[in-house]
């Protein structure tokens, strides 16, 4: 009985964690290439979820097309437009200016959705069957398994893109050393734009996976954004895939703490973990120590 519960909690934690990881990896990529701490990352998940509902329920596109359209809108608005209109102008003004600007951007998106569309939760179609599958006699949620699988695929795709393509390699070069990358003839500004687009696609995928669980509401980004931050810090800001580990740790911590410790303090648990990591290894679990 205990083992079965434990297994179910583990799968649920990993599934949630993999979705947090999608947002967290994008968050870390932005930080690495452009020193952007995106305080609107949660809303970068909310907006594509609303876009899917807009294209499917309002315009009546078939679901897969609606998802595709939402990803394109996300890449254009949250990727290119935000980079061109906001970040480009603030890049050399330091971290605080970008923090304030993205903080305001997040509020802007959240309030716009709430006021101009609806303050209520909108339904989102289930991607996977609600019936559990039985593995070795243990009932496992199909939704959790499906989310875990889909998120894993997305992360694998990202990994291949960063490792196997020229653009991916150039992006990593910019992430490691902007000045040196520019000297080598890499178009830094274009690579930063590519990172913003990539981030918007990642948060778009996270949106599609999380929306059936959370429903589509203007404020779902608050919790998600915070969890992406936690995941990024726990994993380490200077390691792209540290955020993956961080996301899984946050998802598992939440899942176990909610079941075994206290549902009321579920959120405090991953936070305690975060503070412990900061005190013990400020560069993050997988992060590399930076001097200066």
């Amino acid at each position, binding site marked *: 009985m205990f083992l079965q519960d434990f297994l179910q909690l583990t799968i649920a934690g990993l599934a949630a964690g993999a979705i947090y990881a999608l947002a967290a990896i994008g968050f870390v990529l932005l930080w690495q290439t452009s020193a952007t701490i995106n305080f609107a990352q949660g809303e970068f998940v909310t907006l594509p979820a609303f876009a899917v509902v807009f294209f499917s329920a309002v315009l009546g596109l078939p679901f897969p097309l609606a998802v595709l359209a939402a990803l394109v809108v996300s890449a254009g608005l949250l990727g290119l437009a935000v980079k061109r209109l906001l970040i480009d102008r*603030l890049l050399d003004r330091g971290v605080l200016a970008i923090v304030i600007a993205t903080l305001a951007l997040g509020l*802007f998106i959240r309030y716009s959705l709430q006021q101009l569309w609806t303050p209520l939760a909108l339904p989102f179609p289930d991607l996977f069957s609600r019936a559990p599958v039985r593995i070795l006699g243990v009932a496992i949620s199909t939704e959790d398994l499906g989310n875990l699988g889909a998120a894993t695929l997305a992360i694998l795709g990202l990994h291949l893109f960063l490792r196997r393509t020229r653009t991916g390699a150039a992006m990593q070069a910019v992430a490691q050393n902007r000045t040196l990358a520019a000297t080598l003839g890499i178009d830094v500004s274009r690579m930063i734009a590519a990172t913003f687009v990539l981030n918007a696609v990642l948060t778009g995928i996270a949106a599609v996976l999380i929306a059936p669980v959370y429903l589509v509401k203007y404020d779902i980004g608050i919790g998600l954004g915070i969890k992406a931050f936690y995941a990024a*810090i726990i994993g380490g800001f200077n390691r792209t895939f540290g955020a993956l580990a961080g996301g899984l740790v946050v998802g598992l911590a939440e899942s176990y703490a909610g079941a075994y410790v206290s549902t009321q303090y579920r959120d405090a648990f991953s936070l305690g973990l975060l503070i412990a990591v900061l005190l013990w290894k400020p560069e993050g679990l997988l992060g590399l120590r930076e001097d200066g």
Partner: protein
Amino acid sequence: MLAASRAGRASLWIALALLAGLPLVVPDYPLYLASLTLIYALAALGLNLTLGYAGQVSLAQGAFMGIGAYGLALFTAQGVPFLLALAGGAALAFACGLLLGYPALKVKHHSLAMVTMGFNIIAFLLMRNEEWLTGGSYGLSGIPRPRLGPVSFADDRAYYLLVLAVTASVAALAARMIHSPWGRGLRAIRENEVRAEVVGVNLRNYKLAAFAVGALLGGIAGGLFAPLLRYIDPHAFSLERSIQLLLMVVVGGLGRFSGPLIGAVVVTILPEILRMTQGLYLILFSGLIMLLVLFRPQGLIALGDLFRPASAEGRR
């Protein structure tokens, strides 16, 4: 002091006199807004010490207000006199500031914002969940307005004057601190940490003190807030409040002494003026902040500099 010139000091006294005369001319609701603005200004002033002068991004000022407010409410419920309860709540906030400052100083700016944000979330959860102490989501009600000796501050007008007196005195003390050698050390850290350390500024102690004093001011503001509404609940001190206070500091002008006051006026009064736009106000406001960061990074206070002789530039 606040402004070095004699003219500056004179205009300060005039402003204070005008504020003190406010209860004679304005009706109840605007007066309530004025009290609220002063309280937020005080909290933002504290945050400005942490953020504007010491350069530490803190998203926990709302929690410190909460600690001061709950501290005051719980102490007065035990029969502790108002001023002592106010000091007690503020001391609690100061202690929490020190406690938070310690791990916060080990991390760089990007993590610092998250740690303080996390602190605010934990504080909110404690206020909401520990019903035996804080009344949970229902909060605490029936918080009395104070009586000092023969003078009762139960009346809205009288309480406004008390808020004004406390805010002005604390602000004057803070101004004195900013212009002391200690304040110069703080600014040296913000401008260049390494250089400051080389000339003998102890980074750790300075940052820790900036954090704790900022928290203390937040605690005093919270202590004034509770009797104003006579009621407090956790939502008044959520992360949202901290973000609002942060925006006040930025809107007003980071690291400028009167910046937070301007910011508090804008953030508190503007929604009332834009009330007919209903919820659109929130969209307008967040859009405005983005424009401000893009085109007026020095905050609204810098608009005034346009009309000032060049020699005044850079005076803080």
